[in-house]
Structures are given as structure tokens and as C-alpha cells.
């Protein structure tokens, strides 16, 4: 026991900071209803500003802390309030997309300025130690715990006893009602966001010397706050802080045992996600803090293009794709992975767009598919198509596991559970013999060792089959049930269909496609590696698919081109900006949801031209309304009237 005490002390100190971060998260979530995935990114921003001021420019640390907490914090709080206000009428999935987008922006900018490597920061707090029952305790550790306790108690008192706290608790349920009592709902929310951001910034600054400054690490590690917040059921500030302490201690103590058992090395950093995942799975329905459900928005139903037009477009597209291998030269490899990415986005789109579910662990699905493919192809010497199918089938049960939280949870909690699951898989399973092994790389040979050109057509062929399968699901009975689930699960059960079955099926179908994509991607590159298939990619993919339009098939192709193909044609200096760009676009999509649908706009534009050439009496071109008009003003039924009758009317 006594040899554990030092670990407990370390755990208490880091745990206090996790708890602090969790407290800020809970506060903003409770008042705005927007679960801030970028909470960790705010902490990072605070930490980087501190580093810039204190370590690079020699500003004394108290002043640097003051600037980070009391100037940057409120500034970000004001911005977040503006974003949160915009998001209040959108679906849970879009809220997740928006804050994940924000996270990517901060992360991307930090990487561009400071580089991806970890910067070690000397502890700025006094590091002298004193002994308690034979254990060295640092003054810095005492300060961390003291700050954590003070902030948690302070916030609890504010929430319970003051008028502002009362208003904060009420504002999320009915802002209009709150305003009737003479309080300003926006002001109340803004103060909550400001306090939350200040706390987040403080936790980042306090954590930076302990963990080092690394954009991804800090952003994801402050996500440990998720685990702490889960202990507080996303509502109780005090319990959240206690949860943070618990998470910190559990991680530190398991570190002690992990040194003895190398296979457990991935465990300590995963503790918060175990906690998060376990609580989300075990929580009684309704015991977690719930925000009023917002229904999915009108997706804008466009009249289909005339059949002849569609055929011409399809033929042209097929022709263009057939030409690719002969035009792009050495860049064909990128186009091959593009085909695999189409399948990835089909898989994700099926979940997000058809069924209204959120998945933040899709990269893990793909990784399972890729590694299984390699095992089957190399280890079991199976022929290529059989190995591909096998990889897909092995991924299906993994999808079924993720369906379990989807049945019990919705919206943001589902997103959190899938995120936690993805990270667990990444930390605990990727490096075991089940997936990539300790080497992290596996061979994944192509069928008969074919050339890039031939393999490109194989990959496109598989992608087309995947698209047909997706379309079949969408248009079939399951597709209709899923649309119904997205609108009203309650009504669907009352009609006799099991929502559980439908959700398990769609997660399995999505995992199947992701498995196919994994195999396709791996054998395109010749090797299956875990790099590029981590939690960060899952976040990135969700934002890309969200900004790529509302229709599953077209948005999959657009997303794949944007993510996988386009970067090679842009100057290398822009590559770093990719996450920033996608994050910004996803944020914009979420903020202007229902008002911007640029694929819809494009299509209206084409149709309007088609109508004009046919001289039908279209009163106004939809294109005239620009980006913002395409969703809100849909086509009237008369626009689709046959051209022949219109000609009769128009002719003198």
C-alpha cells in the first residue's frame, strides 16, 4: 500500500485538474444545452497563450495566468455563447458537428504555429516538497488540488444559492420563460460560457507543465473531463470534481501496475474512457442530464432531375472516372484511396444522414476491417475477394457492440460513447495481435499483385457496389424505418416495429461497409497501418461528411474527393490547414443548417438552366436566391410540369 501512496498523490493533483475541466464542461452544458467537444481545445488555447507569454516572452507567470484566464477565457466565452445561441434550434448531431469543428480549428491552428511535437514546459508553480507520512508532496500539487476544490465549491454555491445560478439552471429549459421573470436569458448564458471558458483555460494552464504541450494530447486529454463529467451525470458540479479526482487516481495507480505488465500500457490513459463508457452504458434512462429533444430539420426535398439528364450525367461521370488512371499519372495512388474513402463515407452517411445517429469511432471500424483483411489475406492465404468479404463480416459484430449505447442513448451521449469506444479500441486493441500487433504495420497485398491502373478499377467497382447496397438499404423497408426512427422512435414502436432491431441493423450495415473500406484502403496501399485511423480521423470524417451535403450518395463522393484527393493538388504548405478548413466548414454548416445546402443550390442552378432552355414558365430561377435561398424556398410542384404543355401555353 505504501508504495502506492506516491501514485495517489500524483493522481490527486492531475485528477484535480481533470475535475476542474469537467466542472467547466458541466456548467456550460447545463446552461446552454450544447455539449462542448472543443472544451479541451479551449484549455489548449489557454495553455499555448501562457507558453507564448511566459516561456517565450518572459512575462511573469502570475500575469500570464491572469491574461490566459481572465482575458482569453471571457473572450472565448463570448464567442462560444454566440455559437451556442445559433445552435439552440438544431439537432444533437449538428451540435456535435459544430463543436467538433471548433476543436479542429483550434487544434489545426495550434499545430501550424507550434508544430505537432510535444513542448515540455517547466513547472511555474513552486515545486518545493514536504513530507506527509513519508511521501513527498509538492507545493504545486497542493495548489492544484486547492484550486480545484475552491472552484468547485464556489460554482456549487453560485448555482445553488444565487439568483444568477438559479437562472443558469432554468435557462436551458425555457429561455423565454426566464425572460418573463425579468432576467436576460442571453446574459445568463453568456456568463455561464464565460465562467466555463475561464475554468477551461485555467485547467489547460495548470495541466500543461504536468503533461507537456502537445496540441492533440492536450485537446484529447482534457477530454478526460468527459469521464469526470460522466461521474457527475453531466449535471452535478461537486460530483464531477470528485469524479475527476477518482479518474486521476485510478489512472496514476494503474500506471504503477502497467509498468509490471507491458500489455496494460494502454490502460492508464484510457481510464476516463472506461469510466465514461461504463457510466453511459449503466446509467438509467433519464438519470443523465437531458436537453429537450430537437427534431431533425427538413432536409429539403428536391424534385429529381429528368431521367434523360440523370443518364447523361451518369454516363459523363463514368467516362470521367474511366479516364482518371490515364490522366493523373503518378497521383493515381491518391485516387485509389479516394475510392476507398467513398466507401467510408457511404458507411458514415448511412448512419448520420439516414438514421440520424452519430458515430465518432468510424476510424476504428475501418481499422478493424483493414487489419482483419491483412490477417485473412496474409495469415490465412485467402483469395482477395474472400478476404475483403471476411474483413467486412468480422467488422459487423464490432458495429453491433456500438449499437448497444445507440439503443439506450441518443444525441450527444451516443456521440460520447462512440468516441470513448473508438479511443479504447485505439489504445487497448490496435497494438495487440488481434489487430496490428506491436509492429503497427501489416502487409495487405493486392489481388494477384495487379498494377495501380487495374486496381483503381477494382476499387471503383467495389465502391459502386457499396453505393448500390447503400441505395438498396435506403430505399428498402429498413431505410424507411430508419427515417421514421430519426423522426419519432416512440411512434414507430407503437406501430409494432422494433427500434432496437432497426438500429442494430444499421450499425451492422455501416460497420460492414467500413470493413470493406478498410480492406480496400489497406490493399490499395499494400500495407495496413494504424496511422491515419485514430480518434482524430473519426472527428475529422464526421465534420467532412456533415459539410458535404444532405444526400448520402453524392455527399460520399464529394467528401472523399475533398478529404483524400484534393490535398495532393494543393500546395504542400496548405496541407496543415486541412483540419482548419474542414472544421470551419463544418461549423458553418451547423450554424447555418437548413439555410446553406450548397449541393442543393448547385442542383437548383442546373435545373433552373434546364427549365430555361425548355422555355417552361418558371417564374423565378431558384439560383437567384443564392446559397441562402435554396433550402427555404423549395420548388413548387408546377415547376416539374412537362415541357410540352408549357410550350403550348407559352407559344402565341
Amino acid at each position, binding site marked *: 500500500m505504501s508504495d502506492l501512496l506516491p501514485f495517489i498523490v500524483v493522481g490527486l493533483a492531475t485528477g484535480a485538474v481533470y475535475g476542474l475541466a469537467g466542472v467547466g464542461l458541466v456548467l456550460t452544458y447545463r446552461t446552454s444545452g450544447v455539449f462542448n467537444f472543443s472544451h479541451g481545445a479551449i484549455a489548449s488555447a489557454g495553455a499555448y497563450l501562457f507558453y507564448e507569454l511566459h516561456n517565450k516572452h518572459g512575462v511573469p507567470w502570475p500575469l500570464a495566468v491572469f491574461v490566459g484566464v481572465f482575458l482569453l477565457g471571457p473572450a472565448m466565452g463570448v464567442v462560444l455563447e454566440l455559437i451556442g445561441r445559433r445552435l439552440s434550434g438544431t439537432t444533437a448531431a449538428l451540435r456535435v458537428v459544430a463543436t467538433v469543428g471548433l476543436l479542429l480549428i483550434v487544434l489545426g491552428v495550434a499545430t501550424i504555429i507550434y508544430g505537432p511535437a510535444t513542448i515540455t514546459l517547466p513547472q511555474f508553480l513552486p515545486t518545493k516538497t514536504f513530507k506527509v507520512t513519508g511521501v513527498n508532496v509538492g507545493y504545486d500539487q497542493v495548489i492544484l488540488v486547492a484550486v480545484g476544490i475552491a472552484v468547485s465549491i464556489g460554482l456549487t454555491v453560485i448555482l445553488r444559492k444565487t439568483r444568477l445560478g438559479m437562472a443558469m439552471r432554468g435557462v436551458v429549459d425555457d429561455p423565454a420563460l426566464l425572460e418573463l421573470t425579468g432576467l436576460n436569458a442571453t446574459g445568463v448564458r453568456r456568463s455561464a460560457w464565460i465562467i466555463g471558458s475561464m475554468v477551461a483555460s485555467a485547467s489547460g494552464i495548470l495541466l500543461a507543465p504536468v503533461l507537456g504541450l502537445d496540441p492533440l494530447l492536450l485537446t484529447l486529454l482534457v477530454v478526460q473531463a468527459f469521464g469526470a463529467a460522466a461521474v457527475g451525470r453531466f449535471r452535478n458540479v461537486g460530483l464531477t470534481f470528485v469524479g475527476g479526482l477518482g479518474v486521476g487516481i485510478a489512472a496514476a495507480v494503474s500506471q504503477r501496475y502497467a509498468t509490471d505488465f507491458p500489455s496494460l500500457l494502454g490502460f492508464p490513459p484510457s481510464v476516463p474512457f472506461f469510466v465514461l463508457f461504463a457510466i453511459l452504458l449503466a446509467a438509467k434512462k433519464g438519470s443523465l442530464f437531458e436537453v429537450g429533444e430537437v*427534431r431533425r430539420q427538413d432536409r429539403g426535398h428536391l424534385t429529381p432531375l429528368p431521367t434523360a439528364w440523370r443518364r447523361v450525367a451518369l454516363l459523363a461521370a463514368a467516362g470521367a472516372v474511366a479516364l482518371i488512371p490515364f490522366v493523373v499519372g503518378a497521383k493515381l495512388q491518391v485516387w485509389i484511396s479516394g475510392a476507398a474513402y467513398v466507401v467510408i463515407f457511404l458507411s458514415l452517411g448511412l448512419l448520420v444522414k439516414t438514421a440520424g445517429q452519430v458515430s465518432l469511432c468510424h476510424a476504428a471500424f475501418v481499422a478493424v476491417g483493414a487489419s482483419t483483411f491483412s490477417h485473412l489475406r496474409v495469415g490465412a492465404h485467402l483469395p482477395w475477394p474472400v478476404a475483403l468479404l471476411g474483413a467486412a463480416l468480422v467488422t459487423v459484430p464490432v458495429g453491433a457492440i456500438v449499437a448497444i449505447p445507440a439503443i439506450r442513448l441518443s444525441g450527444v451521449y451516443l456521440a460520447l460513447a462512440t468516441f470513448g469506444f473508438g479511443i479504447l479500441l485505439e489504445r487497448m486493441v490496435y497494438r495487440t495481435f488481434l489487430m496490428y500487433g506491436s509492429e503497427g504495420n501489416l502487409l495487405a497485398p493486392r489481388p494477384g499483385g495487379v498494377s495501380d491502373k487495374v486496381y483503381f478499377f477494382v476499387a471503383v467497382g467495389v465502391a459502386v457496389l457499396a453505393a448500390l447496397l447503400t441505395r438498396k438499404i435506403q430505399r428498402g423497408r429498413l431505410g*424507411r*424505418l430508419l427515417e421514421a426512427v430519426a*423522426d419519432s422512435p416512440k411512434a414507430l414502436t*407503437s406501430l409494432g416495429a422494433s427500434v432496437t432491431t432497426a438500429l442494430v441493423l444499421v450499425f451492422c450495415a455501416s460497420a460492414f461497409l467500413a470493413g470493406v473500406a478498410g480492406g480496400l484502403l489497406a490493399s490499395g496501399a499494400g500495407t495496413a497501418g494504424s496511422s491515419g485511423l485514430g480518434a482524430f480521423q473519426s472527428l475529422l470524417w464526421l465534420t467532412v461528411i456533415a459539410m458535404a451535403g444532405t444526400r448520402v450518395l453524392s455527399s460520399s463522393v464529394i467528401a472523399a474527393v475533398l478529404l483524400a484527393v484534393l490535398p495532393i493538388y494543393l500546395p504542400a504548405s496548405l496541407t496543415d490547414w486541412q483540419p482548419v478548413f474542414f472544421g470551419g466548414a463544418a461549423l458553418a454548416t451547423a450554424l447555418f443548417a437548413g439555410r446553406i445546402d450548397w449541393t442543393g443550390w448547385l442542383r437548383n442552378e442546373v435545373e433552373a438552366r434546364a427549365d430555361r432552355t425548355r422555355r417552361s414558365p418558371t417564374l423565378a430561377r431558384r439560383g437567384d436566391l443564392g446559397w441562402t435561398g435554396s433550402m427555404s424556398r423549395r420548388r413548387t410542384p408546377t415547376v416539374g410540369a412537362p415541357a410540352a404543355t408549357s410550350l403550348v401555353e407559352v407559344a402565341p
Partner: protein
Amino acid sequence: MSPVDNGLVVDGLEVRFGGLVAVNGLSLEAPIGRITGLIGPNGAGKSTSFDACFGFTRPSAGRVSFAGVDLTHAPVTSRAHLGIGRTFQRIELFDNLSVHHNVALGLEAKLAGRSPLTQLWARRSERIAVEEVTREMMDLCHLTDLADTRAGSLSTGQRRLVELARALAGGHQLLLLDEPASGLDAHESRAFGQLLRRVVETRGTGILVVEHDMSLVSTICDYVYVLDYGRLIYQGTPAEVLASETVRIAYLGTEPIPEEV
């Protein structure tokens, strides 16, 4: 009263929320081919008993059965398969789907059921049946002109009709309607009542309707149960209920709750 073996029988139903007894020993019968009303002032426990009958709320005591089958602890989806359909007080439509799709789901969802196989594959004969029933029900509820309209864009009156058509498409023997007249004006409410009567007379369906609006209940129901503070305080024909002193007091609230049923 003799027990009906072809309808819904509720026996000694009790629902508790913590210490609060929302429904206390409710017994009623809703036979096929008739319209039974369950009325009471706001907060009397009508919707709670309704949800308990349908499986959305767990009763703490009592028994619910339909056509002789015990349903008390059966899952919600099993109701539809046994022949009970329902509507909701707060209308639950699939807002992003067209009226046609909404109504079609009434039967489609029942056919899809709980098995993965039936959810994935629809047989040809089933597709034809769904299409036929959908047309018929939209026709019956005067929705044919709205078939391609998005359900979310309709008025409350039209939405009530879509919900009814959807429940009817399931081909159920008994429909539970939760405050179908709320949000409707007097004219719409009257028309809705006439439609319900027509459904019962032409199709032999049974209906259990929960309402707090006496006018609809008194014109369409064959038999009425009156609930107050979770207890059954009166039952009889609409005329008897309207004449009853007990019911009048419960609604006007001039005296404390009567102890006797």
C-alpha cells in the same frame, strides 16, 4: 358486467410515480365494435392509464389483457401485433416523411416487426398490400390530395387525420386515441367524431378514446368511464354521465373527492 373476451380488459390497474399514486385501481372494458370513452378533468390520470395499457408506463399492480391475452408486462411493440393501435396526445408523426409514407408505415412497421429478417426484406405481396391499404386509408381520412405533402408542414387538424389514418392502416381491432380533439376547433372536432363513428360502423373496429372535452365524448361514445384523482368515479352511457351529480362535482370541483366509486 360480464367479461368481454374480444376486447381490452383492464383490471385493478395501479400506477405509481414514487409516492404518488397516479392511477388507483382502475378497471374498465373496451369491447371491439364500440366506442368507449375515458374522461376526467386534467390530471385525473387518463393519459397515464393509457400509457400503462400500451406499455409505455409500467403498472405497479393490476392486469391488462386483450382478446384474452395478458399484456401487462408485454413490450410495446407486441400491442400492434395483437391488434391494438394508438395515437398520441402530442401528435407523433414522422415529420420529414410525406403523408403517404406516414400512413404506409402504419402497416409497414407492423410487418417489419422485431425480426432483423422482416426488417430487411419486404415481400412483394407485402409491398402491394401496404400500397393498397395506404390508398384506402388516405381516401377514408380525406388525405389523398395531401399524399405527397411533408407531414411536418400540415395543420394540427390534418396531422390528427394522418395519425388516425396511420393507426388504421395497421388493420387493428382496437384503437386507443389519446385526446384526439385537442388542438381542433369545434367544427374539426365534430367532423373527426363523425369519421370515428364511420370507422366503427363500417369496419367493426373498437375504439377507446381519452378526452377531457365532454362534447366529443358525449356525441360519439357508447359507454363512458369517468376518472378523477386516479380513481374511477362513475361509469355509464353518455346521457347518464352528463346527468350525474358526481361527475358534475368532479368537473366543477365544488366538493372534495368522493370516497365512493
